């Protein structure tokens, strides 16, 4: 996948001018936010559960080595296999080895952001193996050769007319005069086409929402049922999960499940929560003969013990992007890599480097909505600020920004001079603002005034007003 995060500014410009995208993003604004808030209102313990969920992940991360080895032991005892991968390339190699061992031609895939991160589909295709995405949204974007624009609603950037055009282009064996104007008919067609693929697939690949150390189980949370069909019909089930997905016990998973669905889609519980442990048992009438887990690091261990450790609590619910004004405006593709929105603005620099992804933590107004809705209480704005500091320390900001900031810093550290200058400049600027009392042109701030006017200062400066307020307080009889 071509990383376009360095071109975020250009991407955002194009996204704002894309009428189809802007129409589709309206569904995010209207859909997700109300559903979440209704679900949260219906559960008085929601906030206490957030604290509980946070404490579970913090405890697990502080003992991650021990929980990973405990988990591994239980998977092996249940008859499964565990593979460890330090990098994306190692994980891809392990998948290919499993495919080759079974002479696999087709792989059915449940929805998995980790397989997006390791670019598994392109790799399998180049190796002569056909990956079939079975989640409706993932299937649509696979047909289009795109990547997800949202971590739980991968095709949220599209309108139904675009999906209809893609189905007509690809499903050429179906009658061209069929009616696909209704989303239900699109869903029905995808269901029929994909049914056959599950039976054809030699191997099923899913991600995991949780790995349970107590039992060696992997858990997936879905609504469509495709992740289940992908793992029970093929002979081999491969789970790919990053190392921070482990939780200690089934009870711990239950705590986090209560905040996951409500934060993601506003459901009390997703339709299918599936706990899978090892391969089918000797007398089982169905299920996979083999069960493999690939544990991927790919940069996570480097976040432990740093100011970014808390990001490893993330359960990928998508609430932060659903509530983000920047994400609403530009959509997920503008972020230029796998993870968009506020969680992407923190995670992407950790995984691909702040030199490439430095724009992302800067693309925030710090309005704080992401942190306020995060079920794991991850301080996303604080961590974006940490990335801005790292960017500054490494001298990655543009020269003009660095010079401007240095000048302002020099000025701000000399309060007497600063106050004198503002005291002198205020009335001058007020006059320069003219009758309209605003500026349509400002030197060095062309980008800002291109879309709006800058109001001219009125009355007294902030510092003057502050002094008056203090004086009033001290003189007051109260």
């Amino acid at each position: 996948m071509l990383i376009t995060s360095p071109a975020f500014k250009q991407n955002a410009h194009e996204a704002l001018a894309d009428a189809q995208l802007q129409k589709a993003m309206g569904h995010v604004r209207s859909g997700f936010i109300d559903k979440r808030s209704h679900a949260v209102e219906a559960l008085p313990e929601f906030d206490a559960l957030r604290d509980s969920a946070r404490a579970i992940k913090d405890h697990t991360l502080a003992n991650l080595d021990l929980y990973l080895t405990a988990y591994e032991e239980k998977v092996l005892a249940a008859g499964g296999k565990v593979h460890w991968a330090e990098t994306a390339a190692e994980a891809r190699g392990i998948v290919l080895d499993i495919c080759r061992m079974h002479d696999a031609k087709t792989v059915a895939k449940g929805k998995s952001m980790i397989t997006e991160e390791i670019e598994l589909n392109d790799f399998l295709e180049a190796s002569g193996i056909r990956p079939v995405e079975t989640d409706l949204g993932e299937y649509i974007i696979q047909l289009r050769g795109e990547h997800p624009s949202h971590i739980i609603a991968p095709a949220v950037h599209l309108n139904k007319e675009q999906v209809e055009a893609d189905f007509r282009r690809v499903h050429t064996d179906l009658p061209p005069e069929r009616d696909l104007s209704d989303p239900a008919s699109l869903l029905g067609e995808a269901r029929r086409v994909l049914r056959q693929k599950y039976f054809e697939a030699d191997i099923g690949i899913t991600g995991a929402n949780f790995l349970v150390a107590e039992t060696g189980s992997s858990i997936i949370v879905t609504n469509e049922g495709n992740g289940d069909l992908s793992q029970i019909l093929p002979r081999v089930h491969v789970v790919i999960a990053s190392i921070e997905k482990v939780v200690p016990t089934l009870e711990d998973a239950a705590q986090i499940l209560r905040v996951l669905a409500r934060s993601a889609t506003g459901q009390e519980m997703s339709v299918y929560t599936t706990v899978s442990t090892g391969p089918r048992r000797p007398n089982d009438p169905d299920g996979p003969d083999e069960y493999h887990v690939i544990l991927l690091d790919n940069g996570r261990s480097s976040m432990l013990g740093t100011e970014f450790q808390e990001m490893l609590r993330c359960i990928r619910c998508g609430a932060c992007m659903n509530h983000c004004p920047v994400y609403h405006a530009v959509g997920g593709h503008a972020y230029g890599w796998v993870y968009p929105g506020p969680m992407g603005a923190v995670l992407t620099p950790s995984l691909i480097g702040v030199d490439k992804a430095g724009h992302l933590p800067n693309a925030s107004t710090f309005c704080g909505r992401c942190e306020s809705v995060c079920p794991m209480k991850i301080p996303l704005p604080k961590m974006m600020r940490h990335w801005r500091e790292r960017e500054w320390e490494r001298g990655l900001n543009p020269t003009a920004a660095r010079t401007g900031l240095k000048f302002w810093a020099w000025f701000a550290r000399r309060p007497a001079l600063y106050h004198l200058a503002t005291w002198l400049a205020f009335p001058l600027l007020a006059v320069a603002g003219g009758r309209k009392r605003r500026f349509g042109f400002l030197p060095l701030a062309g980008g800002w005034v291109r879309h709006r006017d800058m109001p001219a200062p009125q009355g007294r400066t902030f510092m003057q007003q502050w002094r008056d307020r203090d004086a009033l307080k001290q003189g007051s009889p109260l």
Partner: protein
Amino acid sequence: MSAREAILGKVRKALDASGNAGRLDNVWDRLMEAPAGIIPTRAQLDPEARVELFCRMATQAAATVARVAGEEVVPAAVTAYLRARNLPAKVRMGGDRRLKAMPWVNERTLQVRHGPSDGDDEASVSHAAAAIAETGTLALFSGKDNPTTLNFLPDHHIVVVDAADIGGDLESVMRLARARYGKGEMPRTLNFITGPSRSGDIEQKLLLGAHGPRALHIIVVDG
């Protein structure tokens, strides 16, 4: 060095984990005791109120629910469901002993086939191990007599559950799994099912019947 050793080594170094012997005890205790966290009060009810809450929450999740007086009338309730929806009088089911004990022979027109689904069944019947009132969720364990394919391939999934097996919360199912399979042991698959399959992937419009069943019908058996 293997990838396993490399990853664990990096984790230990980052956590500064050397020489902290108390960690192992803490982890072991947590795995053994599996402490429950916050349990919502919503479903902490007496048994009858719990069954009512379950029925209400399952209906809210777009399942249909019928309450019947005893297991001897379950086959008739299955036939009635199929007839009301104009479906062929055919079902597929596993060899679950509670289902087997029911008088299917009384339903002369109903054709019952056994074993896992091959994808051609319109309707299947399963017996849930338990259910959860808090969210209207069914819990099904896989095993010799309970094929998982029956939960996903047919268009109509009919699930029988005993009213006495409806617990308040998810944790009640975790306790049941431990009692049935042993501490730390699980069957191959535990399916928690809340309503019929759905997708909101096209324009955030919620549509039922994505890849799994288009309809979920629950028969709650009293007595």
